[in-house]
Each structure stands twice: as structure tokens, then as C-alpha cells.
């Protein structure tokens, strides 16, 4: 018989955290930092924090399976991982779009588990979904008005701020958002999220589908927005680029955080390179 194409874990797919923790000696620093004990230590006083999250779409199928996460005030945190790892699901769960089956999400120490989206928006959390995230038949200005739906009085002041970041949105304010290119739409979506003056921004693959020039542009904007005091959680397919600009990164795999460290360290971690950044990972 030929060799199996895939190594199959005899115990089934459910390798629990305890198993991995028992062999702590072999863990790389980034792996160790992703264990629950380390998470509990490091997540102290975090702005956004998720503990042991379990969530999913279909009854009986958990997509997030005990995911830990934290974001300190002012950080830009990247989340990378293979397709289907649950990155988008994690963002949606943090934002209350998917019911939490167990675990807890907190914002500034206050539980927001299961809180409706409009409450999170008014608490200063902005979320830019992955695809189709503009209202195509509304004008750019109307898209921006939707951004401050909960605080309409601040429209003018905030729009001026957003135009400062994305001058194009001011120039084309009367144009329909649907007529814009992919990169320009991404600006609309990010600008709209900034209209509420959020303290945390959740970005789901902001560079997806953009030409390389626009991709760079998006990453530079994210750094700039972060520099103005907005903490950012960014999910990215473009893993290397994301790790280059973020303060800290998570590698998510099968609904759990497998590695976490500074962006630079993750990029140099042999296992992360082999599994998620190398040619093998690219081929997936």
C-alpha cells in the first residue's frame, strides 16, 4: 500500500488544548503564548477580550472551538490563518452577529457577549465586513450618513475628518458607491466605519481583491488610522504584509488560536513559516 496522503490523528481531530500544553517544553514561544495560561496573564486589562469562545452557524457545528483573543488599547492586531479557519467568524462573533455558545467577550472589562450590533456601534466598535460592504445604490455621502446613523448630529464634523483621510470620498460625494472600483469601495467602507469615531475597528480582509498598489495603500491607511488612536483588529489573507505592519499577530487554525506573538516574531517562527507562510501554505 502506498503512503497515506494525509497524516491522520489516531485520537480523532479533537486534539485538546490540554494535550498540547502537557508537552510545553516543545512549544515555540508563539505557541506557548497562545496557550490559555499565557492568554489569561497577557489579556489582563485588555480593551477587547474573548475567552474560550465557542460559536458557529449551524446547530451542532462549532466553527470557533475555544478561541482566546485580546486587543490592548492602541494595538493593531492581525489575524491570519488558512481559509476556513474561522477568522471572519471570530470577527462576527466579537461583533455580536453570531450567537456565542460558550465563552465570553468583553469590552473595557464589560461583558458584551451576545450584545446587539447597534449597542456595540454606540460603544465605539466599528466593523467592516469582508465583501460587498458598501450600499451600492446609495451615494457616497449617504453611505457616510449611514455610518453615523446612531449619531446624526456629528455628520459634518466626522465627514470632514474622513475626507481628510480619503479625499476621494469628498470629491465624489454625490456619486453612487456602486460605481466605484474595488479599492475605492474599500475606502467607503473604512471611512463609513470611522464616521462613528470608533475606539476599535474590526477589519475583515481589507486588502482582498485589490490590486497590489491599492493593497499597500490599505495597509498604510490602517497604520495611519491606528496612529490616530484607533485600535484595530485586522483579518488578512495577505499574511506577510499583515504581520509586517501589525503590533501583534494571531494565527488561527480550526477555530482556535494556534500561535500569537509580535508580527515580526511570527514571521520568523519556523513553524509558522512552514505551515502558514511558506510555499506549502501558499499552495492551499
Amino acid at each position, binding site marked *: 500500500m502506498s503512503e497515506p496522503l494525509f497524516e491522520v490523528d489516531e485520537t480523532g481531530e479533537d486534539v485538546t488544548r490540554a494535550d498540547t500544553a502537557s508537552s510545553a517544553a516543545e512549544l515555540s514561544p508563539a505557541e506557548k503564548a497562545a496557550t490559555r495560561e499565557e492568554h489569561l496573564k497577557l489579556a489582563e486589562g485588555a480593551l477587547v477580550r474573548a475567552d474560550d469562545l465557542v460559536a458557529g452557524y449551524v446547530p451542532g457545528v462549532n466553527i470557533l472551538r475555544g478561541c482566546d483573543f485580546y486587543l490592548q488599547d492602541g494595538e493593531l492586531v492581525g489575524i491570519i490563518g488558512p481559509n476556513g479557519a474561522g477568522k471572519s467568524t471570530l470577527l462576527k462573533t466579537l461583533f455580536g452577529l453570531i450567537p456565542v455558545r460558550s465563552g465570553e467577550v468583553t469590552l473595557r472589562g464589560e461583558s458584551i457577549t451576545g450584545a446587539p450590533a447597534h449597542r456595540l456601534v454606540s460603544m465605539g466598535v466599528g466593523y467592516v*465586513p469582508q465583501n460587498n460592504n458598501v*450600499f451600492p445604490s446609495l451615494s457616497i455621502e449617504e453611505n457616510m450618513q*449611514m455610518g453615523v446613523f*446612531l449619531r446624526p448630529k456629528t455628520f459634518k464634523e466626522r465627514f470632514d475628518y474622513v475626507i481628510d483621510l480619503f479625499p476621494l470620498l469628498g470629491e465624489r460625494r454625490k456619486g453612487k458607491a456602486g460605481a466605484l472600483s474595488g479599492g475605492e469601495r474599500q475606502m467607503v467602507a473604512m471611512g463609513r466605519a470611522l464616521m*462613528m469615531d470608533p475606539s476599535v475597528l474590526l477589519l475583515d480582509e481589507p486588502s482582498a481583491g485589490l490590486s497590489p498598489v491599492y493593497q499597500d495603500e490599505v495597509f498604510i491607511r490602517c497604520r495611519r488610522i491606528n496612529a490616530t488612536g484607533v485600535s484595530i483588529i485586522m483579518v488578512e489573507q495577505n499574511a506577510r504584509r499583515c504581520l509586517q505592519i501589525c503590533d501583534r499577530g494571531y494565527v488561527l487554525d480550526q477555530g482556535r488560536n494556534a500561535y500569537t506573538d509580535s508580527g515580526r516574531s511570527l514571521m520568523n517562527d519556523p513553524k509558522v513559516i512552514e505551515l502558514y507562510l511558506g510555499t506549502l501554505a501558499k499552495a492551499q
Partner: protein
Amino acid sequence: MRDVLLTAIRGIGFGSIYAMLAVGFVVIYKSSRVISFAQPALMLAGAVLVSYLAGPIGFYGAVLVAALAIAALGLGVERATIRPMIGRPVFVIAIITLGLDIAIRVVVNAFIGSDVRNVGDPWGLSAVDVFGLPVQERYIAMVLVLVVTVGALFAFFQYSRYGLAMRAASLDQETAMVQGVSVGAMMALSWAIAGGLAAVAGAFVGAGGGIEQNTWIIALKALPAIIIGGLDSVGGAVIGGLLVGLVESFFATYQGEYLPWLGQNFSLVSPYVLLLVVLLVRPYGIFGTREVERV
């Protein structure tokens, strides 16, 4: 010529009523992708309310109160029976609205009784002279009330914050939620708008002839109207409603004379003939967009 004009005016008059009902269907459809078959009952409930209130507070006051009351009823019905079903297949929700229609009509029928009820409108069948034509006042009133209600609705969608939010939510519910819009509240609002419009339509359906238990059937003429106009277009619903009124009116006047082989009362099915013709040429209705799913 004179007959043609009078036939057209009658068609536009009743067409205005179909248009108001059709707009209600479309507003609900846009918020929830469901056709609410409860519209006929809401129309009848509004008409009955007007028939009871017109005496004490006058016809116009009664129409206003009925519009607000049926809007509130629509709001409550949405909250109690539709909201818990969000995420279920569309046809399940459509069936629920059908049940609602029957339930509401059972209650309303008790207040109608077996006779025709007068809605207390100030016009009856009296006519005014317009350039030598004896135009029934009620038709003029029907057109005016369409212009006022739909004009107000357009202004609401175009210039108000909640109108914008409803447009946004109908384009993309998740992205609207992410802006802090409560999608459920937008659905409730759409039911309130549809209820208010249905109540006003009901009052005017009764103008001239009164209402009876069977009057609800008139609301079904809005169905070909919305399919002709395009399920997701408010402007299309208005055009569709007017077209249905016109076609019906012309068949009523001339079919017996020119197309006698179609039998008696062909005008009743004429809107569906118009519907077939339009769908053959434009499968998504005159103003509809492509992604509309037929229920």
C-alpha cells in the same frame, strides 16, 4: 371621445387605490423579501374603522385616525408574528401572512355585518364639471390622496434618516446592522407604512359605494400591479397600479362592445392578462431589478 376620457378617469381613480395598496406590498417586500398577504385584511380593517368614526369625527379625521391605528396594528402584527420567524423560508412567512389575513378579516367581518356599510365619504357619486366632462369627485379625491401619500413616502425615503436606513437595510441587511440599524425595527416600520396606506386605500375603496365583507378582494388587484411594476420598485408599484386600473376600466366599458366573445365580466381578469403580456416582454417587471425572487 367623451366616453374614452371618462373611462380613463375612472381607471386612474381606482388605479390610485391599487397603487397605494401596491406600494404597501413593495415596502414590506423591500424590507423582508416577503409578500404580505395580510394587506387585504388591513385595508378592510381601515375601511371599517372609517365607517364607524366618520359619523362622530368626520371623514377626514376618521381617515387619519384609521391610518394611524392600522399602522399601529401592522407594527404589532409584525412584532408578534413575523419577527420571530426571521430566517425561516420566505414561503413559510408568506403563509403566515395569509393566516393573519384570514384571522383579521374574521374579526373585521363581525363589525361589517351582512350589509353594505357606508364609509361616510363626502362625495358619493356626485360629479363636477371639468371642461364639460362630468367627472366624479371621488376619482379626483383618489388621485389626490395617492399624490399626497406617495409623495410623502418618497420624501421620507429620500430625506429622512429612517427612510435612508430603510433603503440601506433593503440593499444589505447585514451591512445596515453593522451601522447600528435595527433591521427588525425597519421591518416593523415597513409594516406600519403598508398598514397606513392600506387603511387610506380602504377608506377610498368605500367612497361612493360603501364596503362589504367581500371588498377585501379588491386589494388582490395590487398583486398584478406589483408584478407589473417590479416587486422592489415603489415607483413601479404606482405605475403598475394605475395601469391595472386603466386596463380594467377600459375592458369594463368597451369589451362587451368590441370583444363580446370574451364573455361577461372579462374586466375582472383583465389585469392578469396585462400581467402576462408584461412578463413576456420584461420578466422582472417594468422597473424591477434582476435579483428579485418570485414567491
